[in-house]
């Protein structure tokens, strides 16, 4: 056992020592820095200046390129734009936890179900950490809030689609954020080492289940390359800024239901093409079944029956794991709703807040060890998304972790989403999933081994894919180009992270390689901080729209993604896109003010000049946007 137990929250980290040491220096320098900056940038106080936060090209090849495209076009329109480049961790902290930015360019995790927009945009989440409304977006009229609530209560799919259409109409005129394009998911694996690559989507746990070694493979260990090293340091399922995809969490923690991504037979392994349909369903997994009961007051309750004889992992050998029961399920929803369980400030789990908000947690009733009733505030369609949260073992999270931390009141009074339980890397990684934690080496690799007692093993059920590979090792790699080379040379088996667009054309044409294009629900977007009153006028939807007219999505998809991305006007998966907002070469609401990526200055200026309310006007002499 070689688990890293250094916990940056509990210990004194380098940063705080440094910060203390540098505090004096920074205080004395800060005034001087501002001077340096204004001399260097030539900024006067009057010109509108905006900063665009993003990550470096080493972390993501496209984000800074999109940011530069926008920076250049903002400058052409007379705005002083700068790029604020940060490491992945600092970037997410800045956007998701501190909300300390003007604009940012980044990959949104998205979701197959449009209900994720509820947490992304509802005004009650405007000051919550995580992907809960990081844009601090709220409207005076609350029209968007109402539609977000209505769509999740609509039981009829047709009715929901109509409400969503209204919501998306509101979205494109309000532009709380601007979706730019959806990158194609593309992975490669060694077909000469494993079979069964096409059974499940690799952004979900199902991609890794059902994989089996070929005849020529005698070690039965799969090495997957990931270009984000964070899972090699922390696999706490609650941490907000830890990762964009849940795949590794899904392997270690079972959930009541599992997401199945399926496309019709003509589809080319799940790639979105015009003539085929991708379907997303939540099917029972840890739950043996669930049954929906219509309540008299129009709400829904799920009667969930758990599988019997499911046990949690144990990290010690020769011990049998604790059984997973209805109590663990109830506890999980209580903990996700408030990770302090009422002991301190309310601090919901940042990753799953939207999911849990669909559940009436206080109304959960345990019928017996394996049966419980879960009432919902929403339709059954939206409710099933709440079945995908990881089920956590009560005996560890309550007794070992929470009780210990409650002793330290400092810890409990930390801001939302930042207290020890949510950020710690020292939580015992115990779930009931098909793979259990085996080993972790800091910044290098994470090894999971098959959980031989998992319920799926030896099951006859058709939809239940089982773990066959004995050991999964996720190895941090430096980038997609390196990953392609390593797989092609046989040095590794699979690219766990989707390949970045620039590396796709470098994949060699080789019979022993399996290529796996897949449907995608993540997207690149431009976020605006609408909550800053003293900053640039992002509170104004007209101002946001004018900025959106400086983004050439078609050009971005073509130039920066080499065509391996689809420009989008609205941030929902294809089946939910209303006809009016299907991509047709230009953005239907805010077409690009220019061509081939180059902004037409007059067009851009007129977009800003037509804004009624903002405090900035064009200075004709200097062609800059200047405060009135």
């Amino acid at each position, binding site marked *: 056992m070689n688990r890293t137990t250094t916990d940056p929250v509990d210990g004194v980290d380098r940063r705080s020592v440094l910060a203390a040491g540098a505090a004096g220096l920074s205080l004395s320098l800060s005034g001087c820095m501002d001077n340096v900056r204004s001399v260097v940038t030539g900024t006067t106080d009057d010109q509108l200046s905006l900063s665009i936060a993003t990550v*470096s*090209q080493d972390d993501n090849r496209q984000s800074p390129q999109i940011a530069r495209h926008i920076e250049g076009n903002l400058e052409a329109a007379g705005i002083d734009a700068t790029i604020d480049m940060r490491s992945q*961790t600092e970037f997410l902290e800045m956007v998701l936890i501190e909300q300390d930015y003007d604009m940012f360019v980044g990959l949104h995790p998205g979701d197959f179900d449009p209900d994720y927009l509820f947490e992304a945009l509802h005004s009650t989440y405007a000051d919550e950490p995580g992907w809960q409304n990081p844009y601090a977006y709220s409207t005076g009229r609350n029209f968007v809030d109402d539609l977000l609530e209505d769509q999740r209560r609509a039981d009829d799919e047709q009715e929901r689609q109509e409400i969503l259409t209204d919501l998306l109409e509101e979205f494109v005129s309000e532009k709380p954020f601007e979706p730019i394009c959806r990158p194609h998911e593309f992975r490669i694996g060694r077909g000469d080492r494993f079979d069964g690559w096409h059974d499940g989507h690799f952004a979900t746990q199902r991609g890794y289940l059902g994989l089996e070694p070929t005849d020529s493979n005698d070690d039965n260990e799969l090495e997957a390359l990931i270009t984000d090293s964070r899972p090699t340091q922390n696999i706490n399922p609650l941490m907000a800024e830890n990762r964009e995809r849940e795949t590794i969490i899904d392997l270690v923690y079972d959930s009541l239901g599992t997401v199945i991504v399926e496309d019709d037979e003509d589809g080319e392994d799940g790639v979105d093409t015009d003539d085929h349909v991708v379907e997303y369903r939540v099917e029972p997994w840890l739950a043996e079944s669930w049954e929906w009961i219509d309540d008299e007051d129009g709400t829904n309750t799920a009667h969930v029956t758990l599988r019997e004889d499911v046990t949690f992992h144990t990290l010690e050998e020769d011990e049998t794991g604790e059984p997973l029961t209805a109590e663990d399920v109830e506890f999980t929803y209580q903990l996700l709703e408030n990770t302090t369980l009422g002991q301190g400030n309310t601090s919901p789990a940042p990753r799953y807040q939207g999911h849990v908000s669909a559940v009436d947690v206080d109304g959960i009733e345990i019928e017996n060890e394996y049966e419980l009733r879960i009432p919902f505030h929403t339709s059954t369609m939206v409710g099933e998304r709440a079945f995908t949260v990881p089920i956590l073992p009560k005996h560890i999270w309550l007794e070992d972790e929470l009780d210990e931390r409650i002793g330290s009141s400092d810890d409990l009074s930390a801001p939302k989403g930042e207290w020890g339980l949510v950020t710690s890397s020292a939580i015992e990684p115990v779930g009931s999933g098909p793979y259990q934690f085996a080993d972790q080496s800091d*910044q290098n690799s994470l090894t999971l081994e098959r959980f031989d007692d998992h319920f799926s093993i030896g099951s006859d059920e058709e939809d239940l894919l089982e773990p066959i590979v004995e050991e999964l090792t996720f190895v941090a790699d430096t980038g997609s180009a*390196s990953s392609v080379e390593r797989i092609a040379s046989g040095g590794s088996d699979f690219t766990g992270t989707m390949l970045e667009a620039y590396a796709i054309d470098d994949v060699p044409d080789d019979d022993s390689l399996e290529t796996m294009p897949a449907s995608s629900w993540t997207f690149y977007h431009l976020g605006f901080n609408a909550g800053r009153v003293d900053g640039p006028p992002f509170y104004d939807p007209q101002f946001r729209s004018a900025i959106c007219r400086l983004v050439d999505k078609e050009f971005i998809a073509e*130039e920066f993604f080499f065509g391996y991305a689809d420009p989008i006007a609205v941030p929902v998966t294809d089946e939910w896109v209303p006809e009016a907002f299907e991509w047709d070469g230009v953005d239907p609401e805010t077409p690009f003010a220019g061509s081939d990526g180059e902004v037409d200055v007059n067009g851009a200026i007129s977009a800003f000049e037509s804004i009624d309310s903002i405090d900035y006007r064009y200075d004709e002499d200097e062609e800059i946007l200047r405060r009135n």
Partner: protein
Amino acid sequence: MLQEVLVGMVQIVGIMLAISIALFISREALTTTLAQLRSRLQITGPVLVVLGIALLINRLMRQSEEDGIFPMTQVIRRLEGDLIYVFQDIETTRLTMYFSFVYVYGYAYILIFPAIAYFVLSNTRMFRRLLTAYTLNYLIGLSVYLLVGAYGPRQFMYPEEMGVVLYDFGPEYAHVTTEVNRNTNVFPSLHTSLAATVGIFAFYTRSEYPYWFVVALILSISVIISTMYLGIHWAIDVVAGLALAAFCVWASDQLVGRWTLSDIVDRTREALDR
């Protein structure tokens, strides 16, 4: 992966060193050194220990995920504008091959060879000065990295501007460079300062090692250009690196020989006797 790359690196740099030793260092010097190995190690021991500590600090710092306290990328970018892109204009595959080789292997070689060459000189002062200058470069460079968080030009480049930069050309190199550096450690350029340090010392010792002087001059200039050609550093980082090198060489002269371990021992003994 890292291991394979490192093994390859040790082999290539090892061959370069072996050839250089055969060409530049006389047989007598080597045999004398072997005979006096013990006493030379005693004299140079403290300097080696201090350098070891500096390298350890470098390693620990690399593992941190935090950027420097002041994000200065934008200031640097504004100051120098598009200067760095001139190198992208002259980019050819051959040049990229050359500069990638120089950046990774040539750099390791020019840092190690002078240490060997000066160790075999009968007077160990040059050896101690060189290692002191290395240590100062690291310590000062690392302190600045703690304060200034800046990203290099390649983080901003468009695909059409990039041509073939280091990590696309040889993705395996990234395994080595991320082992010794983080991508916010840009200002000043330690590749530049250490290469320039070696170049200056080669000038001082040109009478002992005339041919090495020529090799060091060509290689250190190539390393410095490679940092900009490969889009890793801004020109400002390079200028700061040159200034750092000049300072460290000067400071090494001031420091070395001022305090020796035997002096300190003697003085302590005297104090105790009194």
